[in-house]
């Protein structure tokens, strides 16, 4: 008899979290976008002109004019533009102790570039809205501390480069919602009614790691399969949604297979798992520290190998079914 804790109730309800998450994320981001648009006074494509007193050639300097010594002026380069074009613009902007890059972007909005568009919401690394690229690396603006840079560093901030740009730092991430809808949702077991689901902790803990995902889409942005090859977007779901496939395939109560839906085969044939060459960039950029490659993508590849490329497993399954 097992002595493990049981997980019951709401967590095991036959809902469709995969279908809900994008919608929730969508509304949160739509709200933020509205906030950004509200903050923007100028028409699309308008660019900010740096103040003469803070010209780009001015080197970053320590400040001793009444401000704390921990304050300094940093050199920022921020991409401004829209789908028609744009460029990196230089700004010199005040930085204070304890601030993150999002604080500096907000200061730019408040002091030098009122029409700078940026999407943000929680400022706590939990909503996944403020994804951007900082010095070429996909990161959350709100979780990148200014203390990680030297004072003399030039900090370059651009929008996510794998997705179409809307304006400035805001990108159109609807590709991800399209892919989310393509993943078949949780299939409840026919013999159980809601409220009767029982799962052991050790059976669900693998999937719980994947549930930490905040859908910032940094993994989708950094994955070279679509970042460097736009044409692959049609046939490749990306690490976030292949992880979703793995989560459902490992779910102890998912009855997809009993109802004729083979998640392993569909992951390979319909969602492009074979494109993944496990170079682990998705894992490197994940702000939640989810080991996407080791715990989701590679196990899924092994499950696909069971189903499609391993004659011994195939034979074993045949024999077992006969008996």
């Amino acid at each position, binding site marked *: 008899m097992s002595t493990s804790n049981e997980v019951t109730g709401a967590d095991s309800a036959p809902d469709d979290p995969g279908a809900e998450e994008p919608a929730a994320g969508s509304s949160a981001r739509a709200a933020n976008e509205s906030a950004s648009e509200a903050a923007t006074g100028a028409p699309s494509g308008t660019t900010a002109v740096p103040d003469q007193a803070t010209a780009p050639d001015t080197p970053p300097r320590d400040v001793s004019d009444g401000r704390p010594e921990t304050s300094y002026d940093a050199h920022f380069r921020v991409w401004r533009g829209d789908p028609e074009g744009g460029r990196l613009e230089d700004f010199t902007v005040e930085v204070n102790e304890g601030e993150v890059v999002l604080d500096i972007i907000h200061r730019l909005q408040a002091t030098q570039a009122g029409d700078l568009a940026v999407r943000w919401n929680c400022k706590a690394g939990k909503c996944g809205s403020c994804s951007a690229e900082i010095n070429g690396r996909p990161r959350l603006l709100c979780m990148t501390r200014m203390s990680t840079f030297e004072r003399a560093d030039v900090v370059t901030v*651009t929008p996510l480069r794998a997705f179409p740009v809307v304006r400035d730092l805001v990108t159109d991430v609807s590709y991800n919602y399209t892919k989310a809808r393509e993943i078949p949702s949780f299939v409840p077991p026919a013999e159980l009614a809601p409220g009767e689901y029982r799962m052991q902790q050790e059976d669900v803990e693998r999937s719980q790691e994947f549930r930490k995902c905040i859908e910032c889409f940094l993994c989708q942005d950094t994955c*070279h399969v679509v970042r460097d090859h736009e044409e692959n977007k049609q046939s490749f779901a990306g690490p976030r949604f292949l992880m979703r496939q793995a989560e459902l395939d490992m779910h102890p109560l998912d009855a997809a297979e009993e109802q004729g839906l083979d998640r392993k085969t569909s992951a390979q044939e319909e969602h492009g798992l074979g494109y993944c060459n496990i170079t682990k960039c998705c894992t490197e950029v994940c702000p939640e520290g989810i080991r996407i490659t080791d715990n989701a993508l590679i196990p899924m590849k092994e499950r696909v190998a069971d189903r499609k490329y391993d004659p011994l497993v195939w034979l074993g399954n045949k024999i077992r079914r006969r008996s």
Partner: protein
Amino acid sequence: MATGTTPSAETDSPDHPPASGGVRDAPGRAAISARHLRVDRWWLAPGATALGLFAFVVYSTWRAFSNSDYYAAPYVSPFYSPCLADNCETMKGGPNWELFGSWWGLSPALIILIFPLGFRLTCYYYRKAYYRGFWASPPACAVAEPHRKYTGEKRFPLILQNIHRYFFYAALLVAVVLSYDTLLGFRNAEYEWGHMGLGTVVFLVNIVLIWLYTISCHSCRHIIGGRLRHFSKHPVRYRMWGFVGKLNERHMSLAWASLVSVAVADFYVYLLATGAFDDPRFF
């Protein structure tokens, strides 16, 4: 619409071919001409990886084809064990199994090295390493790759990476033989048991690292328990899966450590066989 959930007509329509291009020129993306904006030394890791792997390939190729200086009693080089051809040196009590008979005229190392080579070539860590280091696909995260097209591991020959588990089974057998060789290292040059030298320590370290690397493999993790859906019904396999999972977190380190150790063990035997020095004996 920035966050809309309505798919664009162009994306879904069969009448429109999918847009192509990369990070610099795909339609609609931020117009940034640079292939990356990273300012850190992103090239260091793939460069060092490529250099390390290249050095090993050069060394192992030389040693595998040399067909000499691979046995100095009681030690046999891991590159030549088990020795499956008739043209092997006689190793008293050693891994001489002449399955290939006398027709094989090349170095006997070439027969057996296929298996550890295949295991490492299809290993999930090494795949990352050489895709990045040699093929630049991608060279580093958020650094554009130079290739115009990409199909990943969907097609031949890379679809063959899916047979990694079979090389894992073979690697298990090779590891068993190398364990036997390590045991033979507790003899002296006259084949008397109960002795130990510096070579014994070298072989012991090597075999421990070989085993750790082998069982920390992702395929092993899957076979042990990863393929299960209900761990609660298989408590022993669940615990083993957890143990392998902990090792698996260090798979990269173990891959490098065992690669170096196997080369060191071979080079140690080479030095002894060429008479460069005598094996220091402890007892």
